Structures are given as structure tokens and as C-alpha cells.
């Protein structure tokens, strides 16, 4: 029996939903909270200039982890805003030249909604289906690229199933065809190596709170050479090279920079450790339970992600039986709704599988003891629920 004495319950296994801020990140932010006022856009006094220096240092840290120039990094309020800005901004700027945008059926809601929005404004939107593995078929993508194609948007690493797309190949395909390539890398940056130049990425969305930085901050990488142009979505004082107006939140910028610095210093060892924990979790469950399916490709996957379905069990049933484990049934944005995950459905899996899918998100502060606890609690509970016949057939209907 695992000792629960040292465990903080509920055990947090929802790192793709959000991560706690790393205490080292908070430490870097605190000076800008307590004793450094100053609007980073105030050039008339030392307070403003000091804030600006901090913002620029953070920008350089972000640029370093993605291999870009600091001038190519635009701060935003988060990945949702970055995705809105990249898609609508590019579509509006280049709309007179090209009007087709290709994305996938498994993108994050904010990419899908931005595209639908553009679709209702006369843009030609293609939602490319994915394979059962969650990966896109490059030939199918190539076949959709026409002379009218402006942009391809494919998520680098998936928020629900953790699947990592062949970003470099997609980037190469886009570059050869003169098509812009945007990738939502909210889940990828800091977890897997990303380089905007070797991968031919033109636009890339980054989130702070998915990589142990603060909530309320993100970034958009915008390629300078060849230059990518966007229409601003938030107008005003002309901050961020007029691509995004609004006073920059100095402490949050500093926090995102620090999070990138820590991630790039520790990425390799951390990916190894977290990947081992994930494998241990999967093997522990699969050894003890029959009829467990992995959703999405297990090899091309974020080290910290596992998405499973338990035959005959509704995820809500399991989740309410396990209040001591914080996991989710899909992306947090939609987990308030009871509709089954559109992502799992998009893999071609049945509604039943979708209804019984769980996401386990493992991260920086997850311990082996926590994983052992989860294996034991979860498998015991599933065995007992199955024995009682408490299936989704009786619960969900």
C-alpha cells in the first residue's frame, strides 16, 4: 500500500490545462510587483526605462528558446489572443490576395472559432481531418494547398491527446508552396525543442501558464525575414510595433521570460523524467486493467500527456469516484460542457470511446509517489465500478 502521508491531495494531474507558476518564476517577478512601478512605455523617467529593460530582457529569453530574433516576439495576453491575432490578422492583411486557410479538425477551440469567424466573412476555410493516430497526412495537406492558399495552421503538440505533429515537414511544405505556416505551440514550447528557422515557422503562439509561467501572458512569434504582416486586433497606443496595443504587464512579461529560461535550461532532463513517469503510469494501468485504449499516437506525443479510454466506463463516473485525483475529460475550455470531446471524435473513434476518455497531464512537480498512488486508486476504482456494472450506459442515459 502506498503511503499517502506525504501526498498533497487531490493529486494534480492536469498540467495541459494549466501549470502552477514555478516558484523561481514568481521570484523573478516579485521585484516588479513590489518596488518597481513604472509603465514600460514611459520613456520620460527611469522607472519606465527600467520596466522597459526588464520587458526587453524577457523578450530575448523567449526568442532564445524558439531560435528567433527578439524583435520577432510580440507579447499578448495569452495563446488565445495570439491565435486570434495570427489568424485574423494575417487573413485581414492578405485577404485581397489569397483567401484559403487550411487547419485541422483537432485544433484548439480558439483556432477553430477564429477560422469559423473568418469563414463567415467569406474566407475559404478547410478543416483537414486527422488520422486515427491524431497526426495529419502530409499528402492530404499538400493536396489541399492551392494558389489561393494563404496560410496553414497546425497545432504543434495537442492539448488533449498530446500528439506532436511533423512540424518541420509541414513548415517545409508550406515554405515550398509560398504559404504562411502558423502553429499553436501553447503546449509545445518548453516541452519539446522548437526552432522557428529550422522548422520554417512563420507565426507561432506561445502561452505562459502552460509552461510554469503566469496566466494572462503569452506571445506571438511573427517572422521578420521574409516579413509576415498582420492587421492588429487591439488598437491604441501603438505598443508592440503597433501589432498589439495596451500597457505591457511588466511582471507577467518577466515571468514568461523566466519560464522560458528555466525550460530551456532543463528541457532535456525534464522531458526524460516526465516521460518516464508517464510510461510508468500507462504501464501500471495497462498491467492491472483490461480494455484500456490509448487515444492518439503513443510515440509522437508530449512526454507529459496520456489520454486513455476505459471500455464501458463513462469518464464522469470515474471522475466523481476519484475526487482525490485532479484529471480532466478533455480540454479545460470545454470541460464545463458535457458534450464528448470533439478531438477524440475527430480521430474517428466512437462517441462511447469519446465519453470514456481521460486526459492525464504530468508535469514538473509530479512525483513517482503520486503516480503510484494514482495507479492504485484508479485501477481499484475501475475494477470495482466495472464489477458493480456502473457503466456509462446506466449513468449517462
Amino acid at each position, binding site marked *: 500500500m502506498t503511503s499517502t502521508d506525504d501526498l498533497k491531495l487531490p493529486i494534480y494531474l492536469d498540467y495541459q490545462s494549466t501549470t502552477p507558476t514555478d516558484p523561481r518564476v514568481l521570484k523573478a517577478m516579485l521585484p516588479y510587483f513590489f*518596488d518597481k*512601478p513604472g509603465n514600460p512605455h*514611459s520613456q520620460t523617467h527611469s522607472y519606465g526605462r527600467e520596466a522597459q529593460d526588464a520587458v526587453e530582457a524577457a523578450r530575448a529569453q523567449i526568442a532564445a528558446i524558439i531560435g528567433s530574433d527578439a524583435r520577432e516576439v510580440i507579447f499578448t*495576453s495569452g495563446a488565445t489572443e495570439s491565435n486570434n491575432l495570427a489568424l485574423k490578422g494575417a487573413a485581414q492583411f492578405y485577404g485581397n490576395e489569397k483567401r484559403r486557410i487550411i487547419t485541422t479538425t483537432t485544433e484548439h477551440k480558439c483556432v477553430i472559432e477564429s477560422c469559423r*469567424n473568418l469563414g463567415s466573412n467569406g474566407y475559404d476555410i478547410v478543416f483537414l481531418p486527422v488520422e486515427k493516430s491524431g497526426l495529419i497526412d502530409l499528402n492530404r495537406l499538400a493536396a489541399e494547398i492551392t494558389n489561393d492558399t494563404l496560410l496553414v495552421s497546425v497545432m504543434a503538440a495537442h492539448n488533449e491527446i498530446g500528439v506532436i505533429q511533423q512540424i518541420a515537414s509541414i513548415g517545409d511544405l508550406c515554405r515550398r508552396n509560398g504559404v504562411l505556416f502558423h502553429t499553436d505551440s501553447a503546449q509545445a514550447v518548453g516541452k519539446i525543442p522548437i526552432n522557428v528557422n529550422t522548422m520554417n515557422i512563420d507565426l507561432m503562439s506561445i502561452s505562459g*501558464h502552460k509552461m510554469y509561467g503566469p496566466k494572462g*501572458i503569452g506571445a506571438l512569434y511573427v517572422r521578420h525575414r521574409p516579413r509576415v504582416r498582420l492587421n492588429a486586433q487591439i488598437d491604441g497606443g*501603438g505598443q508592440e510595433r503597433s501589432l498589439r496595443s495596451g500597457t505591457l504587464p511588466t511582471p507577467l512579461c518577466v515571468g514568461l521570460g523566466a519560464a522560458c529560461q528555466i525550460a530551456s535550461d532543463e528541457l532535456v532532463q525534464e522531458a526524460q523524467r516526465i516521460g518516464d513517469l508517464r510510461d510508468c503510469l500507462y504501464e501500471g494501468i495497462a498491467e492491472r486493467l483490461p480494455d484500456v485504449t490509448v487515444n492518439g499516437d503513443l510515440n509522437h506525443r508530449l512526454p507529459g500527456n496520456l489520454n486513455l479510454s476505459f471500455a464501458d466506463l463513462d469518464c464522469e463516473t470515474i471522475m466523481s469516484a476519484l475526487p482525490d485525483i485532479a484529471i480532466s475529460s478533455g480540454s479545460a*475550455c470545454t470541460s464545463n460542457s458535457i458534450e464528448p470531446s470533439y478531438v477524440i471524435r475527430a480521430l474517428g473513434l466512437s462517441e462511447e470511446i469519446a465519453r470514456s476518455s481521460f486526459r492525464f497531464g504530468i508535469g514538473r512537480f509530479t512525483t513517482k509517489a503520486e503516480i503510484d498512488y494514482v495507479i492504485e486508486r484508479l485501477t481499484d476504482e475501475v475494477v470495482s465500478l466495472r464489477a458493480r456494472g456502473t457503466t456509462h450506459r446506466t449513468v449517462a442515459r
Partner: protein
Amino acid sequence: MNDQTSYLDYNASAPLRPAVAEAMKNTMLLAGNPSSVHTYGRFARKQIDDARDLVATTVGADPTKLVFTSGGTEANNLALAGAGRTIRLVSGIEHDSVLAAAPEAVHIPVDQAGVVNTAALDELLAKQNEPALVSVMMANNETGVIQPLTEVISIAHNHNALVHCDAVQALGKLAIDMASLEIDLMTLSAHKIGGPKGIGALALRSNVEIEAQLVGGGQEGRRRAGTENVAAAVGFAEACVEIKKNENEIDRMLHLRNRFEELLRNQASNIEIFGHESPRLVNTCCLRLPGRTSETQVIALDLAGIAVSAGAACSSGKVTSSHVLTAMGVSPSAANESIRVSLGWATTENEIEHAADAWLELYNQTEDRPRRTTE
């Protein structure tokens, strides 16, 4: 060289209140996405809902219709783009984020005292063929002049227009009651009152709806997508608690601002204080020293450790003259001789005197100053 510093640029950004920093620090280390259904998510959800209630209550807004945004600029953009009105009228002294979000808007003139001309507003609205959106700020960020909102709203509503009010600078310096004023859409920002940067809000009147501009997950009642910035919302609410708790701050700021102006006027009879004849925010002083450019003044003060600005911070990197002063009929050359001094919750009498001394030192080196008869 003087070691003393005076931060007098609160209208650009106020230092964070210690209570706010404490509240945020604790929240920041917690995981939890308010949209998640597990314990951590529900706790984050409760934090954001409680924060929403507190902020809404502070300004007489409906908590169910208060949308958190990344700041005042985003809230202004959301209001102007999302209100569903094609015809928009904005005052000529609005913040850049209002002017830029509605580049084609009809500009409502202001008078020399910095006050929106309500008779002109009435005439302009009468000319429109369809119901419009009127955007008039509660108080100006550069001059501090308080706008006649009751009248603006009554005129606008007579013409079936919606009224958006940018109350970013008014919060914490004026009592605001959105419901009794009948404001339709109102913008707030946390970092101007000692809350965190990176959060603001757009409050909607109960019968008013907007179309989301940032789309994605269904957060903020489908009015603004994106994972909620929980710690910042908690900080915003805490800042609201602080301003309520310290209502005497308003009197204190008024006293300090008046003291500053008195110290200057005692020696510098030729300075011009813009909007002084109008009701003004208690913390703002926009003044002109004939014969000395804004740049000279802010540099001299900066060297003495005093932070002021030559206008709004967003545009203070540029050398364009203030659109606010220009709209008041001030000549570009006179506008280029003006600076903004703005104080706030942590300002001390000492800082005010230090700043006045430093400014007067520059003044006394100004050649064309009026000589005192006693000299």
C-alpha cells in the same frame, strides 16, 4: 546629486499596493484553470467569481455582466467593436485606444476648459440616421478634467444611442455608480489604482450585450475567450477593496495636488494649468511653462529623480504634441511646453515638495520668466 525619488506618473501606472501583491502571490502558486471541474479548477472558479463580484460592486455594475479583459485598451476595443453600432461618436480627447479602435468615428468637440460640448453632441446625434454609440471618458488621463456624463448620457439616450465610458482614470479618484448613471458600457483598468498590470474589465449594463472579439473557449460568458488571469483578477479585486477601505485617499490626493500647484504658482505666476477651471480629478495636474519644452522639463525632473510625463505614456516615446491639448484649442507649440504630474495612493508631502523644488529650480533658470518686483 539627490538620492530622493518622487514617482509622480500614476496616470501612466500606479505602484502595486502591498496588499494586492500579497493576495496575488498566494494565488499565483496554485494550479487550477477555472474551467476545470476538479477541486483545483473549482477553487480557481470561485476566486474569479468572487473577484468579479467585488470589482462590480465597487462601481455599481452587474457582476453577471462584467467581463475581465487584459486591460483598458482591450476593453475599449471590445466596447467599440462589439457593441454592434456602425455609427460611432467619440470625444476628441479620448484615449488612443478609443480613437484607434474607431478611426472613422465622428469627433465630439471639447471646449477650452477640456469639457465635452454637449450641445454639439446633441446636434451631431440628431444628424445620424441610425442609433449610434457614443464614447466619452469619465475623466481625462492628461488633464484630469471630469466630463459631464449625466448630461452626455441623457442626450445620448434621447437619441437611442448607447454610451460607452472609459472610466480607467476615474476609478479610485471618483465615486462611480454605473447603474444610477445608466452607463451602457464601461471600461476599467486595475493598474491605474495600484492593482496589477494585465487586467481590466468591460462592464455592461444589464440590458446591453456585446459580440466577442477574442474567440475560442467559452470563457467570460462567451464574451471573451482565453484562460482567465486568476491571480490578476484577485489582485484587481484586492485593489478595489483597498480603495474602498481608504476613502480618505481622495482628500489626501486633492490636498497634495493643490499643495503642488500652490508651491509652483507662488513663484511661477506665468504657468498655465490646463483644465483648472473645470472639475478635475484630485490627482492630476497638467501644466505649461512658457519657454521650456516638455522634453527639457521631464529630463530636468528625471535627473532629479522625479518621474512625470509629457503626456500619455503610450505615446510618450514619440514627439507628437498631445491630441488632448490640441482638441482643447491649445497651439502645438504651447502643447509642447506642457507636462503631466499625477500622484496617487503612496505619494507623500515630501515627494511633492521635492518635485516642486526641482521644477522651480529649472523655472528660475528660465530666462523669460516674469521677474518678481522684490528681486
